[in-house]
């Protein structure tokens, strides 16, 4: 059984008809995770709880009970999202032994909708990175070419879906951490509008930029997951009360008359020519669907990366202060002062990239520098937001590349943080504006690596995005599978 062949809808139907058992689907997922352990995508396998829940579902199906919408969906969750009783490291040594006493709202909603969580996925430490090389638990490998990175920071969550270990997964996206790995691994990744999905239970990195969103093998499945996790949460004051539409039902709408904006700033210098060609070809497919294509401009794009790295790191420097060795997690062995305990715990507990960002953010907020850095970054952020508002007065969605290149080699950029940060150039603007965006595969490079296209919509227009992506997916017809890993038996 290849999990990638089964949509969420088909799993539900097969289960209801008695042609498939949840426990068999679950075993398939667990076996596949074990078989592909070398990819290092999964940090914690949750066999016992997953099988127990699968048995419950099977019993319910036998009794003829109506099954919940995500019955049969095998789910993996990025390790920066907490589940009660299951270790959550956030990819960091500093939480190597941390067992959370509560469950994130998004996971609770998915479980309530019948999904079964089978594992926690590897990621860059506290979601800081674009390659999943910054995990304290080792680098994740790209199933299309195991010498390459899967992207990051949600690399593990992209890989489990791409390699058929789970039906879908949850990731988090602060500057592109769902979309860039989705692009690198040839799967669908969705970053919803800021406030659309509760952040409660997501370890904060940059609170004003953090999002939870799904990975899936098809747009339709991403719509199913979003439908389950979207909505207001009384535990997250930044979650929105805007009503949640039926994303799945709306997928069948047509695109006739849709105006697709193509921002010229996203196709300039630094973009790999092969990526450019593929993305442009995919955009032209919109015309087949009856949509119109227009040129637009997002003039403040060039400031997005520095603005992002000021705001995200400033917030991170504060968000990560709680990892101090006092109440939970790693504490350095030290006998002397409180100060020494703090310093050594954080020095030994955090990896290099996290320390780099904490220092950057601390500096940006320091007395005398605040206005110059954080204050100014916030001003430019509002200009970027304005760019999008103006663009969306001219077009309905925006189409862009996801990343300047296809998946790069492990170790290729790790010593060049600035070049690594430029990986986020097409994704961070979206987080700064808080608008939703979806990534889907639009082809492969001559080297056989997937290339993704990003579609961006106005605030709370996920339905429009999903419909456009669903239609585009159909006409593109991308159906390649990762080649570097074992075939499914």
């Amino acid at each position, binding site marked *: 059984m290849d999990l990638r062949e089964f949509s969420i809808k088909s799993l539900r139907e097969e289960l209801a008809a008695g042609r498939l058992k949840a426990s068999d689907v679950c075993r398939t997922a667990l076996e596949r995770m074990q078989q592909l352990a070398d990819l290092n995508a999964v940090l914690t396998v949750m066999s016992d709880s997953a099988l127990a829940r699968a048995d419950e579902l099977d019993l319910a199906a036998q009794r003829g009970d109506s099954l919940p919408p995500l019955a049969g969906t095998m789910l993996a969750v990025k390790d*920066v*999202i*907490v589940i009660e009783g299951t270790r*959550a490291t*956030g990819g960091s040594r500093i*939480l190597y032994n*941390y067992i*959370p*006493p*509560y469950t*994130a709202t998004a996971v609770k909603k998915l479980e309530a909708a019948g999904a079964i969580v089978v594992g926690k996925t590897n990621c860059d430490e506290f979601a800081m990175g674009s390659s999943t090389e910054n995990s304290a638990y080792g680098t994740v490998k790209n199933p299309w070419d195991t010498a390459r990175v899967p992207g990051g920071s949600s690399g593990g969550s992209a890989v489990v879906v791409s390699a058929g270990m789970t039906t879908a997964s949850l990731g988090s996206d602060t500057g592109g951490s769902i979309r860039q790995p989705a692009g690198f691994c040839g799967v669908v990744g969705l970053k919803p509008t800021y406030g659309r999905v509760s*952040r*409660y*239970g*997501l*370890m*904060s990195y*940059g*609170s*004003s930029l953090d999002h939870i969103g799904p990975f899936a093998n098809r747009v339709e499945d991403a719509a199913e997951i979003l439908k389950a996790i979207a909505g207001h949460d*009384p*535990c*997250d*004051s*930044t979650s929105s009360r805007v009503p949640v539409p039926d994303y799945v039902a709306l997928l069948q709408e047509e695109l006739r008359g849709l105006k697709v904006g193509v921002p010229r700033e996203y196709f300039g210098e630094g973009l790999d020519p092969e990526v450019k060609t593929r993305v442009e070809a995919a955009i032209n497919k919109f015309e087949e669907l009856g949509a119109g294509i227009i040129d637009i401009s997002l003039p403040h794009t060039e400031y997005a990366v520095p603005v992002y790295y000021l705001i995200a790191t*400033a*917030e991170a*420097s*504060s968000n*990560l*202060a*709680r*990892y*101090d060795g*006092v*109440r*939970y997690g790693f504490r350095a062995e030290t006998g002397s002062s*409180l100060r020494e305990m*703090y310093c050594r715990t954080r020095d030994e507990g955090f990896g290099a990239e996290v320390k780099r960002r904490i220092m950057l953010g*601390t500096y940006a*907020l*320091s*007395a005398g520098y*605040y206005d110059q850095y*954080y204050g100014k970054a916030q001003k430019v952020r509002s200009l970027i937001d304005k760019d999008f508002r103006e663009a969306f007065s001219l077009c309905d969605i925006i189409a862009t590349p996801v990343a300047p290149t296809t998946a790069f080699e492990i170790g290729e950029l790790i010593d060049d943080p600035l070049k690594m940060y430029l990986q986020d150039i097409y994704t961070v603007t979206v987080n700064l504006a808080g608008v939703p965006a979806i990534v889907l595969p639009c082809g492969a490079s001559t080297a056989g690596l997937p290339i993704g296209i990003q579609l961006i919509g106005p605030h709370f227009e996920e339905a429009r995005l999903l419909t456009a992506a669903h239609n585009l997916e159909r006409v593109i017809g991308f159906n390649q599978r990762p080649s570097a890993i074992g075939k499914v038996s």
Partner: protein
Amino acid sequence: MREKYEVVIGLEVHAQLKTASKIFCSCSTAFGAEPNSHTCPVCLGLPGALPVLNGTAIEMAARAALALNLRINHESIFSRKNYFYPDLPKGYQISQYDRPFSEHGWVEIPTAERNDAGHAKEWRLKKFGITRLHIEEDAGKSLHEGLRESSSKSYVDLNRSGVPLAEIVSEPDFRSSWEAYDYIQYLRRTLLYVDVCDGNMEEGNLRCDANVSIRTRGSERFGTKVELKNLNSFRFVQKALEYEIDRQIAVVEAGDRVVQETRLWNEREARTYSMRSKEEAHDYRYFPEPDLPPIVVAVDQVARVREALPELPEPRRRRFVEEYGLAFDDAAQLVDNRATADFFEETARDSGNPKAAANWILNELARELKSSGTEITESPLKSDNLSEMIRMIDSGAISGKMAKEVLTEMCRSGAPAAEIVKGMGGGQVSDESQIREIAARVVESNPKQLDEYRAGRTALLGFFVGQVIKQSGGRANPRIVNEVVKEILER
């Protein structure tokens, strides 16, 4: 020496708002629970937990702000104050910084210097500016003593973590320690009046820090300020300020300069100690809290809160003086506690004798309550009982002396005055013939004293009066006894 210098003091008061649950989670705020039992992912600062604002805290802050004549900002924001300490679970405190809840307030209150015995010299009214009142969360508590392994470890109790506080920052308007003392007392009284804080400094729900500097009289420039912390009672505030003023004057007089620093008051040694210098001061790296939307208070909300405010202590004191003709001190004492002031007003109205009401409440009743350790609201004695008693005195039905006994009994049983008087064998005897009869008997049986009186020892009048009242079972009207006895003795 003092005359040469002018003292400049500003105060920062932290008042715990008496909400049932914490400011950003639903944990209880009850005092004295098992350590760390009132905690949850939010107030423990667990990874992924997020704050959700408790609306009652905002309402209470609004009541406090309006009572202090502060202007409530239509929109204010929370900010993070970043520093490391074991009792601060998130590594930052959610507070307010550049856009606080309310600003530009003031109070105009009675203040007086005190003599060595602690008595007020001369009360006068003075206006003090209040810069701002903002909302923030409390930290937990570090416990360094009294626990197993305290010699090698420190413990942290996070029950207090996330308890709502209002921080009330004054202008540097105080020119003496007693002005500061009177202000804090007034602040406490006001917060109690509007029912937002328990006002108990010893339990820590009212805390005070002070900024103190001195300058030569007439100088426009402020001197270097020193921050004083750990002022955990009203008396400490005043004593610590006195100590610090003397210390700064001594430094300047010795030709040195006051150093900008934070000093800690040590009550046992009655002195301040340097805690950290300016160089060691924290850079709190304030920035807007991204997890919480702005606090928006609508104009009609402000109006509603203002409408529901009770009469505040100082306006009430002035009214007591004007409306009831009370002395300044009496009025001030009565308004000190809202329940006492309410009790007074009811008694004043029902008895028709405000001055008597004030006297009885401030003297005899206060003594009774003190000796039984009860609050006025808990006493079986109700204001209508006291009113009835005052009316009986005024009509001559009982004497003042009897009334004291009646009051004691009313405080014990809560029975009506008339009933108690009856139980004591009836009211006051004002019947002259009855008194004359007793008086004649008393004079007759004390011939020696009679001779002495007639020989000029007129002070013995008191002896005869006392005997007559005693013989009457304490019920004879003293005024009539006095007249009758005098008449018989001088016959």
